């Protein structure tokens, strides 16, 4: 039996690894390759109502080893062009999550309906890209509730909500998504960040600032998932800097049902093979028959609430 098989909402995944939105989710052929080496599902690049080139380069750079800063600015071919890509992907029978965005609730719905019609198995709502205008929804619990509720009313497939970590109270936004009927939340999107070159004195990204992903944000994402697991009833998909099998296990222990990966792919597709092999070996060696048995185990330990005095 495959110890890595699991379900998220209606989706059956052959492994807990899902491609994170914004990484490589452009062509059917790359997505197929990623599933062939072990991903359980694919989230596409965020797709909007019309073609959009995004920000100029530099738009993706490394800032520390394994940690990247990006401001792609939601570059995407537009849903009408992308429908042909979705149809191509559907020939391969793996779970496809289409990430969508729009400039109004109506346009979000329009894009999502087209994606569903073309064969998307789930919709991920991008309300959180920190370097584009849609982030304004993800910082407001009422807007988050409204958009999720409206989309749930129109769509048959499950709806996931990708959360913006650049807020004071992530819990209340996540609860608003749950109240709106979200089938899962994805935590977290990239963290607002910036890099300035000291020789030219210029911000490096063409947009000035962007979102931080990769190794440096993993402990932050772990903390966010840990906190959300305490208050949410819907599944959490962990996302943020998972770079090896240990990071994936860590996400599951704090309460993630599945884990998205992205930035680690700068090391190539072998990184996925290594994670899958590591997970299988760990589960076998520690005699778990399914990775889901590990879900939330870190919460069983009492943590110290008040510091010791004298």
């Amino acid at each position, binding site marked *: 039996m495959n110890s890595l098989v699991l379900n998220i909402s209606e989706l059956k995944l052959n492994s807990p690894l899902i491609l994170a939105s914004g*990484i*490589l*989710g*452009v*062509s*059917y*052929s*790359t*997505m*197929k*390759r990623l599933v062939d080496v072990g991903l359980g599902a694919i989230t596409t*690049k965020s797709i909007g109502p019309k*073609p*959009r*080139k*995004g920000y*100029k*380069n*530099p*738009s*993706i*750079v*490394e*800032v*520390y*080893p*394994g940690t*990247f800063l*990006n401001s*792609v600015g939601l*570059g*995407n*071919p*537009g849903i009408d*062009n992308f429908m042909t890509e979705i149809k191509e992907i559907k020939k391969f029978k793996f779970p496809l999550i289409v990430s969508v965005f729009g400039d109004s609730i109506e346009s979000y719905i329009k894009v999502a309906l087209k994606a569903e019609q073309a064969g998307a198995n789930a919709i991920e709502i991008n309300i959180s890209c920190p370097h584009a205008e849609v982030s304004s929804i993800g910082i407001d619990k009422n807007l988050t509730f409204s958009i999720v509720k409206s989309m749930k009313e129109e769509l048959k497939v499950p709806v996931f909500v990708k959360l913006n970590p650049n807020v004071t109270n992530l819990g209340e936004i996540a609860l608003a998504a749950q109240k709106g009927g979200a089938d899962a939340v994805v935590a977290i999107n990239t963290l607002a960040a910036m890099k300035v*070159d000291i*020789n*030219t004195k*210029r911000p*490096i990204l*063409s947009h000035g600032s962007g979102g931080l992903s990769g190794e440096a944000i993993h402990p932050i994402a772990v903390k966010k998932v840990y906190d959300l697991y305490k208050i949410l009833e819907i599944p959490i998909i962990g996302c943020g800097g998972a770079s090896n099998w240990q990071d994936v296990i860590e996400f599951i222990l704090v309460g993630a049902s599945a884990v998205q990966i*992205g*930035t680690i*792919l*700068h*090391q*190539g597709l072998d990184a996925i093979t290594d994670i899958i092999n590591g997970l299988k070996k760990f589960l076998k060696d520690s005699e778990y028959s399914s990775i889901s048995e590990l879900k939330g185990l870190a919460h069983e330990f009492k943590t110290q609430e008040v510091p010791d005095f004298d």
Partner: protein
Amino acid sequence: MTKNIIETVKIKTIIDECDGVKTFLFERNGTVVPKPGQFVMIWVPGVDEIPMSISSYNENGEWAITVKNVGDCTNSIHDLKVGDYIGVRGPLGNFFKIPQDTNKNIFLIGGGIGMVPLRFLASELIKMGNKFKFIEGAKVKDEILFANEFLEYQQEDLEFHFCTDDGSYGKKGFTTDLFEHIIESLSVEELKDSVVFTCGPEIMMHKILQICIEKKVEMYASLERIMRCGCGLCGLCVLDPLGLLVCNDGPVFNSHMLTEMEDFSKFERDFSGKKNSL
């Protein structure tokens, strides 16, 4: 692995190569050594960041890129002066694998600005003691690159053949014609013992692929596509239907991969990810 961190360096030397083409030399910190065929992402502060083949490298840590003025960003590069800063990331991607066997019949076939990675390869081959035959093509005489440098090599077992579309330098015609002519006299064994490294317009490389398949000659081509990251994240440089990425799986691909690539010489994606005809 920190090869994707932008390092800003000062331009040390600028060389006018030919009409609309300049070489820029700069020194980098660190000990990373690039290989022929690899590329760097070059950031022109305030303008853009684009992939560029590495044109040369020496033991003093001096790198060079050779840039043809074809668009906004390359135009800005041409405006740069000695002492100006550019940002560099890399070396990125795979490289031309130099045959261990120094007796192989090596062909380098370059068209136009595609000469750049082959120039770096040629200098490495000479260093390793490999002989080779170089075929260079350009539209007109003024666009022939590195000819003086090549002719200075003056070593036995090196051959340089030039051609131009209008016959203003070397033979009149295309590199593919010259290549076909040269290998005509080779025996089956000699063909089997030959390898082709090529870079240039994809229509040219596609024709070379057809010749190499027919003659059963091993072949490697360096491809170019639009990219944001240069390191396997943005996915814009994908080649359907294999899903190979020019940045991480390439830019150098062998003839087996090229044969199965429907996009080769036909399609590329733009910054939105939309597929367009080349």
